[in-house]
């Protein structure tokens, strides 16, 4: 079966981010999106630890421990950047001012419920960070994830079995097999990887998907 590569997935997400948008890219897979933002668009990156106008990673040796992103990796600031404290940063998120955020996920339900913070395993140490704030704060929430678990189970589900992050928050799902839109009538396929049919995608996903 064909699959979109991680870079293809990132490029596909990047294509859906509009010129001028203020965007937060979550930890993990979503960070790849930064490498694929169209050069003819000016997109402002937000990091929840207090920076708008985040630039790419610094050159080796130019790292500044006071200038990091939410994953605690060194970053840079662009002309036009601004710094603010944590309450202001999360007010920005919760208040609906971000145009878009891109998040990883364990599961997404057909209603757009998101599970991405906790496996619920009895011995797991829970950690939530800013996941819940991002999931409900941004105007559009894009999820990037593998379509299936290593065991072959669908990560797109009728109802999340993992503890949810936020309810009915996801707008679009970008996987290695398809791009799906969450609509009031259920999931709709926007793109499917070459060689995969809509019925086969729905069968693999275990949920109804319209074309």
């Amino acid at each position, binding site marked *: 079966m064909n699959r979109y590569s991680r870079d293809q997935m990132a490029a596909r997400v990047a294509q859906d981010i509009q010129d001028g948008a203020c965007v937060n890219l979550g930890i993990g897979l979503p960070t790849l999106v930064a490498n694929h933002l169209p050069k003819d668009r000016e997109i402002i990156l937000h990091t929840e630890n207090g920076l708008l106008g985040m630039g790419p990673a610094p050159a080796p040796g130019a790292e500044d421990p006071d200038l990091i992103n939410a994953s605690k990796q060194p970053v840079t600031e662009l002309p036009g950047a*601004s710094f603010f404290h944590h309450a202001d940063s999360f007010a920005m998120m919760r208040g*609906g001012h971000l145009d878009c955020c891109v998040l990883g996920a364990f599961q997404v339900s057909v209603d757009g419920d998101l599970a991405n913070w906790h496996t619920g395993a009895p011995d797991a140490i829970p950690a939530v960070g800013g996941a819940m704030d991002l999931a409900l*704060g941004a105007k559009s929430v894009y999820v990037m994830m593998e379509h299936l678990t290593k065991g072959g189970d669908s990560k797109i589900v009728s109802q999340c079995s993992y503890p949810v992050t936020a309810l009915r928050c996801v707008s679009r799902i970008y996987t290695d097999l398809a791009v799906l839109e969450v609509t009031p009538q259920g999931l709709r396929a926007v793109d499917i990887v070459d060689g995969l049919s809509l019925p086969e995608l729905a069968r693999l996903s275990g949920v109804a998907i319209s074309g």
Partner: protein
Amino acid sequence: MIDKTVATVPDAIADINDGATVMIGGFGSAGMPSELIDALIGQGARELTIVNNNAGNGDAGLALLLKARRVRKIICSFPRQTDSWHFDALYRAGEIELELVPQGNLAERIRAAGAGIGAFYTPTGYGTLLAQGKETREIDGRQYVLEHPIHADFALIKALAGDRWGNLVYRKTARNFGPIMATAARCTIAQVQRIVALGVLDPEAVVTPGIFVRRVVCVPAGAAGAVHEAAA
């Protein structure tokens, strides 16, 4: 490319619709966006709900918007002043609705709107006329009143300088309501004394990040204003 600058003041406020809720920055005349208000008077929108600390002073700015009978309701903390004659006349004639809010609750309600807070318990106003009919609650032995956010369609504010991303810095006590109103409106319009190139404003000293601002229009300071700038 992002360019939030707008060429003219009338362009900046052209789409303010009848019935809109409009926040107007300023504490008295400090920080009042006079040119934006004057343009709004010329533009003609009616039945407005205005949020401002005061209810107009003398024969300028907000007072003239009231005089032109464009305002259905005003939400403010301190309407009565020695020179609030236009408001006073409309109020006594029953031709304007007043929602009187303690100044700190006004500020916090505006901030709450921008911050996505659904409601909050404030001690201010408890046991007074201004909390009548509002839900109250005792928390840790202290009494509080439940207050709700104030959202707006538009915010008209004044800042010292801005850039094409909408980043703003203010000047002295003219900052007052500008930064919080910018967060609470669907469309924030800032008049600035000067527009600077991206990167000129110190990222550590930006007060309003550009994400909160939709339009920036340059209104150079007049003779009096030029003096301030020299002093700054």
